[in-house]
């Protein structure tokens, strides 16, 4: 992804490609990235799952659709967040306490 593409994507509100590498313009000293993979019961990644990021009051903050490898990624702020996945294979929840930089979290659905 070129820097120009990255800035074009950021101009709108749709979720960028979840499988793409982090754009070079993303400053990990400033951004709080919450990322991970949605997995089904047997451990298989779930593509096309809807992952919702909820704030500490449970209110919706963002939603993305997982990549073919089941990946998702959010740009949040330091603090505690809830993740909720919806998929044809079932739903799942996780809680993450995030700091600046990349925060990995796994999310199982059943």
């Amino acid at each position, binding site marked *: 992804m070129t820097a120009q593409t990255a800035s074009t994507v950021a101009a709108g*509100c749709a979720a960028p490609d979840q499988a793409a590498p982090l754009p070079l313009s993303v400053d990990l000293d400033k951004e709080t990235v919450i990322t991970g993979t949605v997995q089904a019961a047997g451990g298989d990644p779930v593509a096309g799952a809807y992952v919702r990021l909820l704030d500490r009051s449970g209110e919706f903050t963002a939603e993305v659709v997982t990549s073919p490898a089941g990946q998702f990624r959010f740009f949040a702020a330091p603090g505690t967040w809830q993740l909720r996945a919806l998929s044809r294979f079932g739903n799942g929840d996780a809680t993450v306490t995030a700091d600046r930089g990349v925060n990995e979290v796994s999310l199982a659905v059943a």
Partner: protein
Amino acid sequence: MSRESALVSADWAEKNIAAPGVVFVEVDEDTTAYDGGHIAGAIKLDWRQDLQDPVRRDFVNKEQFEALLSSRGIGNDDTVVLYGGNNNWFAAYAYWYFKLYGHGDVKLLDGGRKKWELDARPLSKDEVKRPATQYVAQEQDLSIRAFRDDVVKAIGVQNLIDVRSPDEYAGRLLAPAHLPQEQAQRAGHIPTALSVPWSKAANEDGTFKSDSELAELYAAAGIDDSKDTIAYCRIGERSSHTWFVLQEILGKANVKNYDGSWTEYGSLVGVPVALGDEPGKA
């Protein structure tokens, strides 16, 4: 307007996929979802490529909109059924846009792409070509579109509704959290704007809540029905979702969408900005 006239269910859509005079239109910012599979017969509109002027920050003009719909094969008498990803944000924006240019019969598919996928309903990868039409648009209906001066004058006077997430409203985030947070505009909200996140109007599967739940939501938030209303978000698509709820489902009068939204307001010189979870004073 009412739920019955503005909204169709996924069941209705599946039964009417091939109905004459019904055109399904998928609207997204990123049209790769459409290319990977869409409702059979649906054409696509690209929120940015098709609906924004390529140079200035504004919409395509009347003649460009006419040319767009003519070339995509949408006629003035067609029933246009819009759907998309992101909980129908961009489809709701397109709905408002079609209304702005005076299209007669336009509807939103309840739940959009998400409910369709979660229900495991069929998607098609077939290329869709419709015969060209001679579409005639109306002049923009500015009774549903707010500009920045309208918004500044509305502070402390009209209902201003900020539909972004609570953290964006308070100034703790600058964009929805699927996007990098480094943005040019200042953080915060328009003073006196009430925080009613768009997501409170929708269920988890993207469908709209019931009429009674929606009416209760805005009443509890403190919307005064004797006043005009302006909804805004960051770029005007989430606020189209709320505009749709207020005017098209609940039938409230004099509701405008501020499409400039926070990316414009948060960059203006000299306007007041409030920080934190409270609306603030005029």
